[in-house]
């Protein structure tokens, strides 16, 4: 009797994701698919709105990465107000935005590691699910849990200081920023009471990396062989090839490391990336035009960024990057669990960038906004924590938005996540007569490596975040698991 296993996170509004694993009569995986249903109405919603509202409006999209949407939209509107792209802003405008952005990266990457990754590493994929979570970490490794909480808090406070407030911040505006960083705020972030200061954050970032490397040394076989598949990779890089999470050119490499997108100006993204619409999904499927619909998919996010860039422009992270790249002899890394490793190198890099920015007196200057000749169209691209984020707008003579197009990282990672799930499902489920919690967790671990955004814009009580349903070929439910 064939069986179908469904892992279904259910959100109560527009979006949900679920994993379906089809087994044949011999309990071998015949097909697995991750379905991500993402709300697509926002691009319609912005039409007719004054362009200057957009950087604030887009934060309604997502409660976990509003800063990424805020900055990508602001960058697109920089072009429209004639301020140019990236370095076209005033030094204070650009550096305040960078501080906001790297503050977001810092809190997001710390949260991912301590909340999602460390429980699996500390307790194992087959560990007791009752303690295999951040509270279990707090029970048995209090110091690690405290670090996670305080690192997240530090990043959140940087966001609040640069964006103005935690909810619906207004820091970035078309052409610049609406506030600078006071000397008092700077001093708090630089030399605040222990542990909320940047040197402690750098030290803890290094500690997290050492923790991961220690685990890796003991579990190399697992880390290196979990969800491995060849992929192309895409990200922004600085014009000189450096890792740059805020601004740069688009670069992609194939699975062997050959450049297949050679440092393309962000304003030209639509010439090199197309989006396929499929009848069975609200989600769009981006692909590289030069490769085509079938094989033009690519991975974005931490793994991709470290596969694409040539170097990291901060010393401590660069040293870690060199050791990381040596693992694959400089070739692209296709090991999904190395996503955690790459993320922690970016965590350290973010902390170093924050320190450099805090020491820069441009943050206290008052020249915040730059404008020039108005344009009708603009593209803003940033590296969000989960991958490359595209915002594209057109406006009319009345300053109303006439077109909006967004490509979010989860849509780019749709195919890679499917491949990761398929890889793990086959290795975990094939030939097994029973489905254990540990087997289910391995599938989740593959998804967690990417930390997809599942339409998280609303969070009222009553939602059911995760449901695992096992049904046979006739549709009868064999088992249901909820989280």
């Amino acid at each position, binding site marked *: 009797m064939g069986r179908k296993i469904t892992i279904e996170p259910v959100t109560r509004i527009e979006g949900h994701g679920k994993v379906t694993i089809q087994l044949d009569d011999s309990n071998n995986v015949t097909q697995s698919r991750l379905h991500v249903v993402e709300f697509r*109405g926002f691009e319609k919603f912005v039409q007719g709105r004054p362009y200057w509202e957009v950087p604030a409006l887009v934060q309604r999209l997502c409660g976990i990465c509003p800063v990424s949407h805020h900055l990508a939209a602001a960058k697109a509107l920089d072009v429209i107000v004639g301020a140019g792209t990236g370095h076209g802003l005033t030094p204070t405008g650009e550096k305040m935005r960078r501080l906001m952005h790297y503050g977001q990266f810092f809190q997001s990457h710390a949260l*991912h590691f301590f909340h999602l990754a460390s429980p699996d590493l500390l307790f194992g994929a087959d560990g007791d699910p009752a303690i295999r979570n951040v509270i279990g970490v*707090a*029970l048995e490794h209090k110091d690690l*849990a405290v670090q996670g*909480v305080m690192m997240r808090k530090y990043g959140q406070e940087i966001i609040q200081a640069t964006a103005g407030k935690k909810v619906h911040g207004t820091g970035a505006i078309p052409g610049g920023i609406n506030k600078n960083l006071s000397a008092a705020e700077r001093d708090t972030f630089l030399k605040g009471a222990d542990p909320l200061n940047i040197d402690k954050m750098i030290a803890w970032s290094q500690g997290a990396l050492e923790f991961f490397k220690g685990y890796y040394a003991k579990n190399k076989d697992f880390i290196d062989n979990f969800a491995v598949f060849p992929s192309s990779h895409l990200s922004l890089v600085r014009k000189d090839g450096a890792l740059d999470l805020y601004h740069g050119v688009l670069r992609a490499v194939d699975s062997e490391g050959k450049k297949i997108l050679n440092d393309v100006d962000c304003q030209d993204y639509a010439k090199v990336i197309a989006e396929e619409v499929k009848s069975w999904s609200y989600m769009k499927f981006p692909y590289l035009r030069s490769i085509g619909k079938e094989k033009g998919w690519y991975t974005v996010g931490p793994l991709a960024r470290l596969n694409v860039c040539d170097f990291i422009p901060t010393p401590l992270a660069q040293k870690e990057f060199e050791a990381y790249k040596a693992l694959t002899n400089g070739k692209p890394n296709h090991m999904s669990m190395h996503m955690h490793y790459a993320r922690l190198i970016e965590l350290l890099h973010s902390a170093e960038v924050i320190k450099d920015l805090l020491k820069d007196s441009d943050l206290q200057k008052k020249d915040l906004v730059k404008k020039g000749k108005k344009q009708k169209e603009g593209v803003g691209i940033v590296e969000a924590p989960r991958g490359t984020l595209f915002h594209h707008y057109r406006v009319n003579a009345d300053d109303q938005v006439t077109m909006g197009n967004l490509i979010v990282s989860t849509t780019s990672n749709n195919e890679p996540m499917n491949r990761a799930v398929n890889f793990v499902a086959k290795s975990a489920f094939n030939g097994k007569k029973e489905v254990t919690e540990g087997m289910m967790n391995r599938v989740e671990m593959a998804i967690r490596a990417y*930390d997809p955004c599942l339409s998280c814009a*609303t969070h*009222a009580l009553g939602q059911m975040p995760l449901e695992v349903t096992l049904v046979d070929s006739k549709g009868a439910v064999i088992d249901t698991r909820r*989280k």
Partner: protein
Amino acid sequence: MKDNRIYIYGFGNPGRQDDGLGPAIIDRLEQDNIAGIITDSNYQLNIEDAHNISQSDVVIFVDASIDAEEPFTFKRIEPSNEITFTTHSMAPESVIALSKEIYDKDIEAYVMAIRGYEWEFNEKFSQKAAHNFNEAYIFLTGKIKELLV
């Protein structure tokens, strides 16, 4: 009870109609300058909130709910280590559990769940949610006075 020992935390997305009921309660408390409390709001709860609430003795989480009894419910909650599978949110029960484990803090915690109905890209509450909001606010300010005695 001393000042600032009551932490009122509203969460939700104000850009998604009734999902903004929690943050709107906080805005109203701040507008009315209710003394003796700490107010806070965010899109959702997360791990750093375990630290934020740890200095208080009582915490009241306020959120919109898709299925709470009308107009709202107000319930005591206990720590729970159930965790979602993404980084995108934590339940109030998990936040107080984390606070307990990290800071050895037993916090008296409540959830006020205000019934909502509509969740589109709009900052205006549905009519019924607006009614529920008023009822909830009257109850909450009374509860705060009671706790401050």
